[in-house]
Structure formats: C-alpha cells, structure tokens
C-alpha cells in the first residue's frame, strides 16, 4: 500500500500542472496547426477543410511581406540600440565611485512601468506640432509628425521599445560586470593595455554569455511587440507599423479571419524557434563559452 502510494505521489504532484500545460499549451499548439488548414466561420460556426489555401492566400500577400518587413525592422532597431545602449549604461555605471545605486534605479524605472499606459503618454509626446518631440526635437532633426508618416511611425515605435528595455539590458550587464575576475584586468594593465584593448580582449569575451542571453531576450520581445503598437498606431498609418504579432490580433480578432491568423501564428513560431537556434551557432557558441576569439 505504502509503496503504491509513494509510486503514485510524483504523478499526483505533476497532474495539475500537466493538465494546465496540455489544455493551454500542447492542445492549442495542435489546434493552431489544424486551424491553418481550415476555413472557420465564427458567425455561423461552420468550418471547412481548405487544404493549403490559407497558406497560399497569406504568404504571397503583400500584407504578409509588409508584416515580416516591419517585424524585422523593429527587431533590428530595438535589438541593436538596446544592447549597445544597455551595455554602455552598464559600463558607465560600473566605473562610478559613487551614485551607482541612483543611476541603476533611474534607468530601471521604465522597466517597472505599464508599457501600454506609457505608450499612451508617448503617443501624446509624439503628437504633431504641439507634442514635446516635435517642439523640442523638431527644429533639431527637421522632422515632425512622426506618427502620421508611414516612413517615421515605425521609428517612433522603436524609440518607445528601446526606452522600455534599455534599463533591463543594463541591469543584466551590470550583474555580469560585477562578477568579472579582477586579476585579468590587473595583468592586462601590466601589459600596458589601454581602455579599448582591455574592453575588447578582457571584458567583451567575459560578457559573452550575458550578450547571448540579452540577444535572445531582446529578439523575443521584438517578435512579440504589441502593446506599443496597439496604443500608439494600431498598425497604421497604411500598415507601416503592423508587425507579425499585431497582425495576428488584427486578422484573428478584428477581422475574424482565423485561418490566416493561424498561418501568421505559425510564422511567429518558426521565427521564435529560429532565434533560439541562433544560440547554437558558431559565434554565439564562442561567446557563450566566454572563450577567446
């Protein structure tokens, strides 16, 4: 009896989590795959098998290419600046003799805010002519009314995306900088290595694992970008800020085109898996091992 009970115990402990994960992860994953091959009418509740029709409608469609392009551009202009900016902030703070805590908190403040609410604030700041961005930066940059310009709206979105995550990147780099072995710096200094050399040959390789981690994180949040777009542009103007994740909502919930929304979901899945696969590639693996070039 008692052996039976002890053999059952692990399964009893696992049961609630297993049920949740099957219902809300595994089953939906299968359903989204199936949905991509069906035409589902939410109004009448009928569905019909359409084979690859959803794929052949969605993938060659200019809107799909546009969503991919927007997602990629958003990724490039948030991953790069956030990583460089975050690392820079971390290096600046790390070298301070006093005030480290103050600056760390200040830069982390945006991370602790509700992104969708702050996007509403940013939308107001980007407002044409009377907004802070136009009145302060307008004369300097010579551009204004970002959010109504199909060429600038995505740039405005990335300004907010970077604003929200630079502090998080900085915190992660700061934590890594705090664990660097001091003796390597001492020997580098003995060799007469200057600031840049010390950074490039000692600090940067040692930060490798953090760099990979930060890349995966920022790439993931770029693929999932939604809140800023929903609050600031609704994908407009002329679809210039409609990214993949926003397009899933737009096709599925707004236009009730479930089949095409399912195809978009699968595209998002493929891209997400691809990002994690990068972790396994050459340069990434060398960075991860913190080794030498």
């Amino acid at each position: 009896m008692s052996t039976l009970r002890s053999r059952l115990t692990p399964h009893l402990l696992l049961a609630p989590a297993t049920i949740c994960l099957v219902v809300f992860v595994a089953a939906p994953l299968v359903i989204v795959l199936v949905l991509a091959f069906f035409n589902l009418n939410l109004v009448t509740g009928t569905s019909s098998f359409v084979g690859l029709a959803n794929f052949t409608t969605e993938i060659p469609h200019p809107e799909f290419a546009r969503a991919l392009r927007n997602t990629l551009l958003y990724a490039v202009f948030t991953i790069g600046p956030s990583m460089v900016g975050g690392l820079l902030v971390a290096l600046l703070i790390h070298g301070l003799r006093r005030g480290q805590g103050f600056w760390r908190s200040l830069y982390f403040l945006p991370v602790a805010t509700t992104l969708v609410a702050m996007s509403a604030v940013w939308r107001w700041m980007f407002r044409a002519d009377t907004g802070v961005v136009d009145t302060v930066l307008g004369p300097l940059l010579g551009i204004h009314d970002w959010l109504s310009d199909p060429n600038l709206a995505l740039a405005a979105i990335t300004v907010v995306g970077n604003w929200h995550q630079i502090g998080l990147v900085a915190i992660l780099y700061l934590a890594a900088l705090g664990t660097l072995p001091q003796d390597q710096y001492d020997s580098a200094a003995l060799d007469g290595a200057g600031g840049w050399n010390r950074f490039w040959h000692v600090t940067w390789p040692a930060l490798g694992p953090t760099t990979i981690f930060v890349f995966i994180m920022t790439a993931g949040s770029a693929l999932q970008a939604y809140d800023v777009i929903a609050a600031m542009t609704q994908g407009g103007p002329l679809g210039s800020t409609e990214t993949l994740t926003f397009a899933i909502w737009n096709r599925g919930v707004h236009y009730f085109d479930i089949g095409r929304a399912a195809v978009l979901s699968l595209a998002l899945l493929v891209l997400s898996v691809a990002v994690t696969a990068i972790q396994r590639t050459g340069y990434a693996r060398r960075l991860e091992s913190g080794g030498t070039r």
Partner: protein
Amino acid sequence: MKLLGQLTRHLLLALGGVYMLAPIVLMLASAFTPTADILAGNYLARPTLDNFVEVARTVPLGTYYLNSVLVALATFALQLVVCVPAAYAMARLRYRGRTITVWLLGLLILIPFQVLAIPIYLIFRQVGLINTLPALILPFVGSAFAIFLLRQFFLALPGSMFDAATLDGAGTVATLLQIVIPASRPALLSLGVFTVTSAWNAYFWPSFVLSDDSAATIPFGVVRFINSDAVTAYGPQMAMATLSVLPLLLAFLFAQRQFIRGLALTGQAG
C-alpha cells in the same frame, strides 16, 4: 584627471537619463495640470486633482482596480498551487519518464504565448469565458517557465534537508509546506514579482478576450479611455495612465532589489 572621468560618466548618464525620465515626469506633471495649462506648456502652474476626478467620473475605476488586483493575485496563488508540486516532483522525486518530462518542459518554454492566443481565444469563446476574469487568469496558471525556475531552485537545495524530513516520516505535503516553501522564499518572491507585474501590465491577452468593462483591467481601461475620449483632453488621459503606472512605480521604489531580481526573469520567460 580621475575626477574629470567620474564627472563625464555622471554627465553622460544624466543625458541618457532625460530619455528615461521624460515620459514619466511629463505624465506625472500633466496628470496634475488642467488640460488648458498643458496645451500652453504651464505644467503644475495651478496643480489640481480635477483630471483624476474626471477619470473617476467617466470610467468604472473601482472595477478596473479590483479586476487588476484579483487577476494578479489569483494568477500567482494558483500558479503556486499548480507549479510548486510539479517542480518539486521533477527536482526531487524519482518516477518513470522523468527525463522526458524535463525535456518536454524545456520545449514548452520555447513556445511564445502569442502563437497560442488564437486557439485559446476560440476555446474561450466556445465555453463562454469572453469578458470574464477566469479568461485572464487560467492560461497563465500552469506556467512551464515557473516550473522550470522553481525546479532549478529546488535542485540547488541541499539534499540533507529532504533526507531529514524523510527520516522524520514527514509526508509529501508536509515536506512541501514545512521545508520546500520556507527554504524557497527568495525564488518564490522573484516569481511573485514577475507574475504579478506581468499580470498587472498585461495588454496583449486582454485585448483578445475583453470587449467591455465587466472584467476589464487597468491597461485595457487606459487604451479604451485614450481612444474614446475627446482627443484634446490630455489631462485626464495622463491621469488615467498615471493610475496604471503609479502602483508599480511605488512598489519598485520601496522594494527595488526584489523588483529588479523579479523583472530580470523576463529574459528567461521566452
């Protein structure tokens, strides 16, 4: 020379700090300034609470707050009940297929929730959960990430702790409640910060399953408000945004270390 370097660092950080602080400061200042003064650029010339009164007059603020608090707390509480036992079993107990379950867990973490939103939305429509609180809570109770995180932590706990409990004849539930949970307070606290803030800030999933105010949380209310109100009423809009942001900002200022540790988990959550 050394002093100059330090000064330069502070200066550069202050420059970037303007970017970080500008929206927060402008929001707070505008929230307490009449809309006419905001348009004229006279922030806080005549400080007022009118904007908040206006918000409270036009939207069911109490419902929003209550829903947000209920969703955040229920998600975390249920997550504990579901994920702690599973993580404990996967870390400390022996059973057939353990390797496979751990491997599967690692696979599930890689799937972004956004990929699953459409099918879960359809299921919830089918069973009538649209515009209800459970719709906002249920998908996040069984979190592969939470199980993974807790398992890592349980693995690092000293084995002698569990041996002693077994010798004392403590049952599984007693071991969980009296040994595992007290010893894991740092991990549970980080997970709590992470889960509660994610639930509080969530807008993606609410925009799928909410269409009216009955189960609306604050972020949903904010977007509804800024899209419905007259475009020029910036004062109330900033007051509404403040109401969403302020509780977390205050919590952050009072418990910075726990907050940073909890939110730093974001990167691992996939």
